[in-house]
């Protein structure tokens, strides 16, 4: 009788154990995930050197396309700024003096097709020329200033269409004092073509390096799985599900991705810091205030998202391939 009652009590225990109530279950679900997350981090930090090596490889692979992307983006901004101001340069005839030139500029300002007018006297042009181009010595050899006065015109917003531009160009060409009216557009088109080309190159590079990250993480996880073969067998023997066994490896991949992205973040910001000076000078040449002092929030977010996703995907691939092979015998 006594044994029967202990038996039924035991049976109740069994039932309870297989139907834990939902609240503790979902609560402990998150707790378990958090525990696995911390546990895998601890495991990685036990051997920080090898972890750092793998993370650095991932970091470099992530930093390359991200860095190129940043440079390209700023080049785009720069060219956009120039493009917004498609301009016509009026090179004035040799004999035109500064007063006449100023008058012409004044007249141009009145025209409805014209937005902004900038007058560059030949003295100013010479000064700028000397500063920028390193022709100082050659210029000194010349007796007189060979440069003409220039009036730079930005068409008003309404008149930037192809046809309107051509009409304006012809009109300006016909004006007195004007030697040549030149539309500065060709080189922008060329720049865009080159940038399209580079952009595609960056995408191809990014794809290949993403594949590299996938393989690096996958291989690292594969080794981790082999190292813990015995543990996996034991866990399977006592009723661990595939999801339970998979989880720590996925989180390991997560950490690799995160640390790789962190390293890439540091690498890119260091590179930008080193490039800051020449970029600033370049920007000044284009009368732009574009600055590249650090990664912007959007790109950083993208970098970290990509790193983590690739880490997870790489470990998922490795786990899917190798976990099934390990079965208790």
């Amino acid at each position, binding site marked *: 009788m006594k*044994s029967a009652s*202990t*038996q039924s009590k*035991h*049976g109740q*225990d*069994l039932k309870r*154990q*297989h139907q*834990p109530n939902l609240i*503790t*279950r979902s*609560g*402990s*679900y998150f*707790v*378990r995930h958090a525990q696995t997350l911390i546990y895998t981090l601890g495991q990685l930090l036990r051997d920080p050197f090898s972890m750092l090596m793998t993370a650095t490889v991932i970091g470099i692979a992530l930093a390359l396309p991200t860095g190129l992307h940043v440079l390209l983006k700023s080049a785009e901004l720069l060219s956009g700024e120039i493009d917004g101001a498609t301009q016509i340069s009026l090179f004035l005839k040799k004999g035109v003096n500064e007063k006449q030139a100023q008058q012409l500029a004044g007249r141009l300002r009145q025209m409805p097709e014209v937005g902004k007018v900038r007058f560059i006297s030949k003295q100013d042009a010479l000064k700028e020329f000397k500063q920028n181009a390193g022709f100082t010595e050659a210029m000194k050899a010349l007796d007189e200033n060979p440069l003409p006065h220039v009036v730079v015109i930005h068409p008003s917003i309404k008149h930037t269409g192809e046809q309107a531009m051509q009409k304006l160009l012809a009109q300006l060409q016909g004006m007195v004092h004007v030697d040549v009216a030149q539309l500065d557009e060709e080189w922008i088109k060329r720049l865009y073509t080159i940038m399209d080309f580079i952009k595609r190159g960056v995408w191809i590079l990014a794809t290949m390096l993403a594949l590299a990250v996938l393989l690096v993480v996958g291989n690292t996880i594969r080794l981790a799985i082999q190292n813990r073969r*015995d*543990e996996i*067998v*034991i*866990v*399977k*023997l*006592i*009723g*661990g*599900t*595939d999801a*339970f066994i998979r989880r720590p490896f996925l989180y390991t991949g997560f950490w690799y991705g995160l640390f790789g992205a962190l390293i890439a973040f540091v690498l890119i910001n260091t590179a930008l810091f080193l490039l800051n000076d020449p970029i600033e000078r370049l920007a000044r040449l284009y009368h732009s205030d574009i600055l590249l002092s650090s990664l912007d929030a959007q790109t950083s977010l993208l970098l970290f998202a990509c790193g983590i996703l690739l880490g997870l995907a790489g470990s998922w691939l490795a786990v899917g391939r190798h976990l099934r092979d390990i079965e*208790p*015998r």
Partner: protein
Amino acid sequence: MIHFSNTTKRYASGQDALLNISFDIEQGEMAFITGHSGAGKSTLLKLIALLERPSRGQVIVNGQNLARVKRRQIPYFRRNIGIIFQDHQLLFDRTVFDNVALPLIIAGHPHREISRRVRPALEKVGLLKKEKHYPITLSGGEQQRVGIARAVVHKPPLLLADEPTGNLDSALSWDIMQIFSDFSQVGVTVLVASHDLELISRMQRRQLILKNGQLQQDNPAQS
């Protein structure tokens, strides 16, 4: 609890590990499987734990026809069985406590409940004082008892042991058998594969004797 009917296991090599085995074991019964090595003792346990599938015939455990248990369901099925191995199969990078807690962690029990269950299991095998030790620092007999604590911590209705005393001297072996007896007293079905005939005869329990994959004798308990 365990029901075999005309069960045959033929390995890919063509060798019949088990041939037309039929028997029943009741809930709460304690039984031994004996026989020379290679007689099929381990294969029989593997069929019960779904480590292998039978080539022919039926295996029913705890009312569940194992042929109908899909691969995905195997982990959940195994949680109803405590398995004890000759080589203990402990995790050497975790403490005794963590080793014993593993089945509960796998089943997703909350933290509080885990320590509430691990301590009694360790107490039962007399290792409560060593819960913070690592298995490598324990003797063979102690390691085996950690394995037992892990097998029973989630209170499975069925306990399987494959040569649990293989590496132990007779006094330690006897202790381990007493622990198994205690579990069968409270309704746990215990099935032990062993070739330690002297120990088995002292236990006076039911014996299933295998020879060349066939059930040669089924001796009932002597008490």
